């Protein structure tokens, strides 16, 4: 390990990091199966070279970037909490660069209010696509101010090494104040839009998964509580924090919004 050159970044937590084997062995990545052990078993079949990320939509400089170019960005480490909507959490040392850097490169126009993301759709390499549990490809979205927030991060590495496939290689989003499924994996397309883009889980069940999906202990999932979580590696549940503990950085973006309505 330690193949990537990086410096420490801001916003890192000093909490105990979740074991590498847990971070890479317990994943939700339905493109490789719905069991949390499936991605570690089957994601090796995904070919991450060559890989490009296409920036498009409402922007002045649409472009397609090779992963090699993206890896030349100045990389930093961010140790973030990750809270899954299912009620478990981890602390993960990501390596990457701020999403804002990439967005600025594309020069989105003033009409661009949202950023849409799309995961690769490679049926031959992603056995989970045979199931129609979700509509493929997996899509996600952020409001422009969320995407430009300094916390929003594009990860290319984990624990100082390149991202393993099951964690979303070669490049994935990390938005630590939102439930994990917002942090879309294996990104191929980033598109600037005027209207709020659809998201895969909202399509699956709009009453269960909202566009914002901010971590919020006061707004339960219709089928289970979000008040507490189990930190992987710990025995007792712990209280879930508003915005997963990142309120200082993000609460302002939602100041005048009813978070029970816009969940």
């Amino acid at each position: 390990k330690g193949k990537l050159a990086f410096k420490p970044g801001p916003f890192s937590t000093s909490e105990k990091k979740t074991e590498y084997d847990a971070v890479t062995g317990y994943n939700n990545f339905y493109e490789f199966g719905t069991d949390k052990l499936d991605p570690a078993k089957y994601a090796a079949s995904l070919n991450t070279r060559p890989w490009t990320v296409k920036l498009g939509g409402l922007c002045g400089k649409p472009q397609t970037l090779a992963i090699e170019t993206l890896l030349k960005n100045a990389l930093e480490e961010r140790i973030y909490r990750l809270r899954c909507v299912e009620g478990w959490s981890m602390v993960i040392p990501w390596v990457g660069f701020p999403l804002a850097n990439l967005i600025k490169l594309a020069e989105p126009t003033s009409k661009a209010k949202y950023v849409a993301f799309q995961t690769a759709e490679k049926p031959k390499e992603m056995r989970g696509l045979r199931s129609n549990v979700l509509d493929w490809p997996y899509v996600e979205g952020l409001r422009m101010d969320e995407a430009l927030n300094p916390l929003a991060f594009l990860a290319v590495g984990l624990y100082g090494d390149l991202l393993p496939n099951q964690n979303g290689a070669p490049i994935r989003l990390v938005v630590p104040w939102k439930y994990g499924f917002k942090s879309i994996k294996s990104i191929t397309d980033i598109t600037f839009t005027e209207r709020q883009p659809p998201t895969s889980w909202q399509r699956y069940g709009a009453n269960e998964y909202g566009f914002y999906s901010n971590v919020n202990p006061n707004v339960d999932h219709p089928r289970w509580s979000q008040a507490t979580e189990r930190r992987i590696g710990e025995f007792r549940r712990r209280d879930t924090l508003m915005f997963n503990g990142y309120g200082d950085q993000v609460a302002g973006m939602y100041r005048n919004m009813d978070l029970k309505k816009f969940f």
Partner: protein
Amino acid sequence: MVKSNKKGFTLDIAFICLICMLPLMWLIWRGYNGDLGVNPIETIVRQLGVWGLRLLIVGLAITPVVRIFKQPRLIRWRRPIGLFAFAYILLHLTSYIGIDQYFDWSAIWKDIVKRPYITFGMVGFVLLIPLAVTSFNGAIKAIGGRVWRNLHKLIYLIVPLGVLHYFLLAKADKTMPLIYGAILIVLLGWRLLEAAKRRK
């Protein structure tokens, strides 16, 4: 050879009990070896629940097998299977209370009243208690065979509650709960057909 007409604890019953204990033994073995995965508490609670449900369904399959294959002695398997199902479900519930919620009674109560899947699971468990405590010859004599038989028809409500409990907690992939539901429909449907035939 197994003596089929013998009452009490025969070799085939001992064998059934042994089989029913295997999932628990396997779980304990995995726990002893630290092999319960990244989220061991979830593994324990889920495995106990799923085996409880499987045994309930196997229990429901006994009568059709007895009738269709004309194997009357197999009816004696129903009791140990049912009692083991109850034992797994009891352990499932106690592990949820003890190691998942860590005796946070207010959170547990909120779960029971607010989360339909927990509500259905709890109702199913409560209904299972009178069945478990009347699973002894003495109890059958005490309440009478007719009352006993009617009481134990509650199982036709309990198992669907169990499947519903499983269906509602599955996040998106409902394949397994749907398979259990399909088997349940076959097993209950067979009984309805038989009842209709008898009425004719």
